Structure formats: C-alpha cells, structure tokens
C-alpha cells in the first residue's frame, strides 16, 4: 500500500457503502433515476460522472486558494460545464446513438448535485491527490447504484442485458418464456426507478442499523 495510505483508502471505499452519495448523502438522484431504463446507458452515465468528478475535483482543488469565495459557485459551474461539454462531444463522436438516448441528461451532469456537493464539501478544503481519490470514490459509489438499478430494470423489463437477450426469446417462446414468463413492461417506466432505489435503501439500512433515520 505504498501509494495509498489507510486514510486515502477510506476515501475511496467509504462512498461505496456507508457514505454512498445516492442512498446516504442524497446527491445526484435526478440522473440516477432518469437514465437507468437500460444497463448500457447506466454504465456510460457512471463513466461520464467518474471523469467529470475525478478531473473536476482536481481542478477545483488546485484553484481552491485563488477562488474568491463569493463567486465560487459560478467558477465551479464553469469548470463542470467545460468538462461536461468534453464528455458530450466525445460521446457524440464515438457513441452517437447512445448520446441521443441520454439526450439532455448528459448536460444535466452539470447540475448533478453530487458534483457541486463534492466540490463544496471536499475539493475546496483538500489537496489535489486526496480530492482526486474522493472524486473517484464518490463517482464509483454513484455508479454502483446506477448499475444495480439499470441491471434490474433492463433484466426484468425487457429480458435483456446490454441489449443481449438473456432470458430467451419472447416471440419464439424459448428459454424462460417457454414456461409462461412475461416481461414486466412496468419496470421500464420511470416510477419503478424510484421504487427500486427505495428498496435498495431499505436493504442497505436493514443491514446497517446505524444508518436508520429518526424520522
């Protein structure tokens, strides 16, 4: 562990479970719910956020001593907006179809609270290396929830994973469908994302009683 001290490791692993940005800090919900109808979009979204949060945290942390605190929100917004434009253009160039389905939600990474939240709470007060680790940790914690939700919504809703049918063919009636299994089209609808996240929170808090809220 020459590269990462114990404290640094904690920065990465904490957001994974006990301080998860979505289920505990309640940050970055919007995009987590809107684009998780299929697994592929969830993965791309997680990678985009990983990039923006990792790089953004370093940039803000490097500039933390020269940003006047009164205009820091605008400075932060400009930094994020620039990074998001890069992500958007890269997606348009290499994954055009996907960037069409994600549509406005790539742009909404700018106002993804997770990013502003980490800038405010961490990058403004810590060095670049630790900020980088914090950014990566939080983005991974965010990505994990996205991928879990995307996995279940696509599997139960369309019977596919990453567009590949895994439960058999619904028209030919092979695989599970031969036994009368039906896709649950409701899983593709937006409300199920909310309910799934609610269930994830339920599972997580049942396992770790310390996280239970008073009310």
């Amino acid at each position, binding site marked *: 562990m020459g590269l990462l001290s114990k404290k640094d490791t904690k920065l990465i692993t904490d957001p994974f479970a006990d301080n998860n940005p979505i*289920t505990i800090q*309640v*940050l*970055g*919900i*919007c*995009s987590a*719910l*809107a684009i998780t109808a299929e697994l592929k979009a969830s993965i791309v979204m997680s990678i985009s956020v990983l990039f923006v949060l990792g790089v953004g945290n370093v940039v803000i942390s490097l500039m933390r001593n020269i940003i006047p605190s009164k205009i820091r*929100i*605008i400075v932060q*917004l*400009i930094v994020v*907006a*620039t990074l*998001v*434009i890069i992500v*958007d*253009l890269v997606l348009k160039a290499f994954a055009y179809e996907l960037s069409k389905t994600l*549509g*406005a939600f790539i*742009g*909404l990474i*700018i*106002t*993804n*609270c997770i990013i*502003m939240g980490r800038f405010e709470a961490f990058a403004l007060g810590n060095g670049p290396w630790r900020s980088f680790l914090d950014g990566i940790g939080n983005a991974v914690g965010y990505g994990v929830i996205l991928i879990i939700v995307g996995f279940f919504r696509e599997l139960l809703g369309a019977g596919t994973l990453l567009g590949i049918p895994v439960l058999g063919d619904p028209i030919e009636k092979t695989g599970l469908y031969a036994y009368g299994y039906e896709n649950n089209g409701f899983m593709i*609808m*937006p*409300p*199920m*994302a*909310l*309910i799934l*996240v*609610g*269930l994830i*929170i*339920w599972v997580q*808090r*049942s396992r770790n*009683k310390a996280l*239970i*809220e*008073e*009310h």
Partner: protein
Amino acid sequence: MEHVELFFKSIFIDNMVFATFLGMCSYLAVSKKVSTAFGLGAAVIFVLAVTVPLNWLLDQYILREGALVWLGPEFAEYDLSFLSFIMFIATIATMVQLVEIIVEKFSPALYNSLGIFLPLIAVNCAILGGSLFMQSREIATLGLALNYGIGSGIGWFLAILAIAAIREKIRYSAVPPALRGLGITFIITGLMAIGFMSFGGMLTGGDEGEDKEQTEISNEKNKENKDIVLKEDIENKELAGMTIEIEK
C-alpha cells in the same frame, strides 16, 4: 389551443419531478415542511419563467446552426450549439444572482420568503433541465417558451407541495425503521409518479373527456383535503394528549 395544450402538458404529463426526475435533490432535501416547500416551489416557478425564455432567445439568435445570420450572411454556417451548456448555466447563475438583488431591493417581504432559496436554485437541475428540454423539444416561439417555463415550474411546485404534505403526515405512521425518512419518501414518490402517469390520457382521450376528467380530479382532491383536515384534527388531539402525559 397550442398554448393551453403545452401548459397542461408541462404541468401534468411531462411533470418535472414525476416524469423526468428533475430537481430531485432539492425535492428530497427541502420537503420536510410544507412552508419551506412552498417557498422553494414559488422560487422555482419564478426563476424558470425568467430563464427559459431568456435561454430560448440565446438559443435562437446565438447558439443554433445558422442562428448568427442576423450578423451578416458570412456567419450563416456557424454552429455554436456545443456551447449551449456553458451559456445556459452562465445565464441561469447570473439571472439568479440578478433576481436576488432586484427582489431584495424592491420587495423585502418577498425576499424574506424566497431569499434563502434563490442561491440554491442555481444548481437545481430542474432549472437547467427546463432550458435543455426547451432546446431538445424545439419550442417554436418566445411565448411558448415562457408558457413552458411557467408550466413546468407549476408542475414542480405541485409535486414538492404534495410530498411535503405527505411527509408531514407520515411521521405519525408506523413505517419499518429501515425505510424511515429517505426510503419511504422514494417509494411514495414512485407511487405518486404512477398516479401522474395516468394524466398521459389527457391528450389522447379526446376533447370531451378532458374537461370531465379535470372536474372529477378536483372533486376528488377536495374530498382528500377534507379527509386530511379531519385526520389532522385527530392527530393534533392525540399529540396534545401525549404532551400532557409527558409533562406529568
């Protein structure tokens, strides 16, 4: 007719919270009390009504392909739409700041009720989302853009008001401990979203059906309100009883 359709569509069918999940962070964070939810909701309507038309103008005359043609024919080929994120967010951030200063100067009463929420709003995804959806749905005129801004603002306002009212009441119910707070809020929002999905029939259900549905809904709402008031009375009495016991 176009205006009416867009207005109701942006309030109910394309509701910011229930259909596109915009502004969820502040929706979850500021919905513990009805009064604060009311303030934030009003501020969102206000800011959306200002920024959506403004960004529409920006998009129409500066950003989109061929938009710069008013500068001269040689600018016809420019396409600055890749800059729209940064332009929109800059407009929103400055407008929010500006609105804050103006409101503080001219209406201290309004400032006191909206004041603390205005800075929060700059980073509310509902605001940027309003502008981005305005762009991707290709809203045609300035009037429609204003309409869209106000409509989606009202939709958001209704959503946060409803969830705040429910959360105030849910405190008295026996929710499983691990689901308390955030978890149950998510699930309730999901159920509300399922309810709002039924508004999708408003545009496809034919002209006559529309009016009927709406009156039915308002009747139902009135009933619900009455029920809530009744329950509240009972709960208040219970609470009073409890505090007396504690005092003893």
